[in-house]
């Protein structure tokens, strides 16, 4: 006969073992750049991914609506015309954590990606291209939000 108390003690041990072995979801993905997603500014996020200071460039573009009616679903597209892109980033300046997405691009992909982001309030949205030669270029666009997407 097993008491409830023994049962609880045992399950705690098992949970501890699982956590130690890395089976619990908190450490499900070691490769995910936690520091970059915790960053509060564009420069910090780029730095956390190992890039230099970003420079504004015409060769990178960000497209999206001028006014988004629903901040929970804002379609954005980032693109660049330059060859040799390693990563494309999408950032929303006034979200609690600025970084929305990192795309690791290979040669088999056109550096032109679209997705949808959430925006808490009207702010600038950045597209950042991290080049193979270490240059970091960005473009920005202001998107106005009439209804916030963070629980409002």
């Amino acid at each position, binding site marked *: 006969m097993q008491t409830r108390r023994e049962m609880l003690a045992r399950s705690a041990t098992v949970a501890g073992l699982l956590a130690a072995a890395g089976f619990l979801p908190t450490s499900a*993905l070691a490769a995910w750049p936690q520091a970059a997603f915790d960053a509060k500014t564009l420069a910090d996020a780029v730095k956390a991914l190992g890039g230099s200071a970003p420079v504004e460039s015409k060769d990178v573009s960000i497209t999206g609506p001028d006014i988004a009616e629903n901040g929970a679903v804002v379609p954005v*597209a980032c693109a660049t015309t330059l060859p040799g892109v390693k990563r494309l980033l999408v950032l929303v300046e006034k979200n609690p954590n600025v970084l929305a*997405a990192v795309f690791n691009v290979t040669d*088999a992909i056109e550096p032109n990606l679209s*997705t949808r*982001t959430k925006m808490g309030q009207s702010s600038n949205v950045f597209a950042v291209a991290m080049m193979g030669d270490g240059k970091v270029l960005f473009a920005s666009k202001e998107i106005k939000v009439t209804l916030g997407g963070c629980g409002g």
Partner: protein
Amino acid sequence: MADPMRIRAQAAGDKTTVRVLMSHEMETGQRKDAAGKVIPAWFIQEVTATHNGKTVLTADWGPSISKNPFLQFVVKGAKAGDKIGITWVDNKGDKRTDEATVS
């Protein structure tokens, strides 16, 4: 296991446009429920796209991607009949893989 993804891959010349619609809550971890408790974050962290088994794109996502995420990208050199595979992994370790044929 989450619901299947909807993937459309359409070839035009030597380029193929792939559109993916995933089914996921994408909870940010910032919202509160009716009782005032924070709803834990639950979002897709990693997305991988393959073309005939070769990885062509990987993405790391944060919680500020919209619910039921949409992703569009263009694969160079993919022809009709090729396979495009998409895999995502969320922060709870849940994953899903779906495949589509280029048309």
